[in-house]
């Protein structure tokens, strides 16, 4: 194990204590302190594993502004009417009560990397030995001409779950008969590669039952998308003629929106729409940029084996915000990375055993009632990146029984991952 000098500065006593008992290396303040920013798939998991496996030896603080975290995963199923909104909301009570995590509902607004402190919007300052950043995503300004966050009431993104998701659903339900639902899909890389296309499936499911002459338009800057063959097969099986996908060959990459007029301009041609779901290009959550750990593309490069920032060894970046290699930006991936990071941090702070990093991901999507599909892969840490080692994907033409089991699996997974995050 490599000892980190900075952890020792503070008191000579800490150094001698380390020699006899290499378990506590936090310096003069007692237990080593880890601050986690963001209580989502990455952050909640990291906090829970640090507290659980640290067995009281690590002081864990979780900073998250919202009291109820609504998962983006399964938020599409809520839009389709397959889940209640309350069923995708989770609170932090168990993390505080059962795991002794200090949960602070506030925004982090500053990181001083030299002093190793985090500033909160409410005015407090939190010192740390290690900082974990899992702030998810923010949108790139100017990515879709005509759209900025002030337009999100008229043209919601619904790509951070919560009131945006409810808004999109209510707009969908209020659509006039035979109206048009438009989605402006994001360029790579973005959170949940199959997410927009699962959403279109769920929107189509709703329309088929309630508004069968309505149309769905997907304006997409990408020449191809995740699980494309599977989605397109499902769309023609279940929603024939309802969904039109406009890729870059037909101007999908040249789009402008006019929120006040509910217009979408595709390659110069103006189309009136009734609902417009704009999912702009993404970057790491702003606090990563404020901490100074992001690259020009807006993501935070990390070392695969520990998820430590390439800029600062005391900061670990998880999930969507990280630039790590081959893993997609998914909740499953963030959860998997969080466990690797928690192990590495524990090893560094308490001398506990560090095993080789392993990562996995599986993303399920629902196309129509009991028609579930999945894609997944396993990964390992190389010097360069998180590298894919093996993978699988559902096949076109699978029978109904298999698709049903696949959907049921996704429900089981949802219960599994949320209890792995929140206890």
């Amino acid at each position, binding site marked *: 194990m490599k000892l980190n000098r900075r952890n020792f500065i503070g008191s000579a006593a800490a150094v001698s204590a380390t020699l006899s008992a290499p378990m506590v290396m936090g310096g003069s303040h007692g237990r080593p302190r880890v601050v986690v920013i963001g209580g989502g798939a990455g952050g909640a998991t990291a906090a829970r*594993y640090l507290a659980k496996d640290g067995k009281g030896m690590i002081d864990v603080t979780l900073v998250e502004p919202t009291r109820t975290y609504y998962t983006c995963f399964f938020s599409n199923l809520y839009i389709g009417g397959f889940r209640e909104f309350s069923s995708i909301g989770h609170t932090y009570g168990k993390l505080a009560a059962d795991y002794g995590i200090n949960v602070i509902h506030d925004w982090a607004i500053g990181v001083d990397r030299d002093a190793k402190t985090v500033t909160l919007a409410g005015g407090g300052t939190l010192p740390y030995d290690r900082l974990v950043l899992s702030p998810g995503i923010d949108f790139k300004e100017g990515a879709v001409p005509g759209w900025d966050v002030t337009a999100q009431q008229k043209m919601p993104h619904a790509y951070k779950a919560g009131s945006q998701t409810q808004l999109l659903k209510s707009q969908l339900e209020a659509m006039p008969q035979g109206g048009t639902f438009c989605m402006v899909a994001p360029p790579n890389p973005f959170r949940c590669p199959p997410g927009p296309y699962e959403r279109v499936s769920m929107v189509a499911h709703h329309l088929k039952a309630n508004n069968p002459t309505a149309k769905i338009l997907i304006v997409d800057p990408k020449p191809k998308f995740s699980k494309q063959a599977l989605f397109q097969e499902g769309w023609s099986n279940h929603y024939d003629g309802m969904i039109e996908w406009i890729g870059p060959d037909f101007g999908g990459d040249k789009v402008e929106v006019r929120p006040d007029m509910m217009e979408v301009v595709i390659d110069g041609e103006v189309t009136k729409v009734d609902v417009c779901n704009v999912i702009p290009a993404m970057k790491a959550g702003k606090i990563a940029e404020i901490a100074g750990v992001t690259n020009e593309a807006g993501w935070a490069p990390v070392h695969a084996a520990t998820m430590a920032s390439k800029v600062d060894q005391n900061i670990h970046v998880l999930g969507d915000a990280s630039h790590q290699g081959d893993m997609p930006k998914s909740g*499953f991936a963030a*959860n*998997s990375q969080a*466990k690797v990071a928690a*192990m590495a941090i524990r090893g560094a702070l308490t001398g506990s*055993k560090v*095993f080789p990093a*392993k990562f*996995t991901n*599986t993303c399920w999507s629902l196309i129509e009632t009991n028609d579930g599909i*999945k894609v*997944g*892969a*396993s990964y390992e840490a190389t010097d360069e990146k998180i590298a894919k*080692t*093996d*993978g*699988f994907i559902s096949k076109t033409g699978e029978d109904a*029984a*298999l698709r*049903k*089991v696949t959907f*049921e*699996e*996704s*429900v*089981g*997974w949802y*219960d*599994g*991952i949320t*209890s*792995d995050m929140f206890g």
Partner: protein
Amino acid sequence: MIELRHVLLSVIVACFAQSAAANHADADAKRGERVFKKCRSCHKVGEGATNRVGPQLNLLFQRVAGSIEGFKYSESMLRAGADGLVWDHNTLDTYLENPKSLISKTRMNFRGLKDAGDRANVMAYLRQFSDNPANIPEASPTTVGTDHEVDPAILALQGDPEYGEYLSSECVSCHQIDGADSGIPSITNWPAEDFVIAMHAYKDKKRVHPVMQMMAGRLSAEEIAGLAAYFEKVGQ
């Protein structure tokens, strides 16, 4: 006791380390009928055969596992069928050798036919009750592996539960540690040996589930043993 069984197994494995397909060439339906006596108390086959304790076995080959209407199968069997398990020469051979290696919680309370010749014979017998016995593929060309039984040396490995606990963090993204099993089966508090057998069946691609094939595929025998040791005792 367990030790002795492992020793016996290794002797048996040594004696019948030929491929199932090779055995099949000299399979003898008459002998198979005699072997089938072991099955007969639960399974009927032939004209007018009906479901008893076990499902009837007419038209067994190319049948999707767990697919006879009205028969009450185990959850595990139904899941395997939905995942794509189809009875053919190879899958039956695996199942008959050690039912639990393929279907952990099968209701078929049978220890298995350890003798490859017995299995080939009983399959030759059962083939007569399928539509076109001559057309039944011996084994689909994509199937892999003919040594079905988990190597006794692997079963004898003592897993390190601490390592298993670390590795388990990958499992619990889907499998709930409290044993809840909606949609995804529980793996909590399984007997370690069942766990090891099941994981090696995925690793060897005898079990069909793609996620589990991938997960097990990258685990070493020690790692599987560690997981088995951890999950056997967790929460107790």
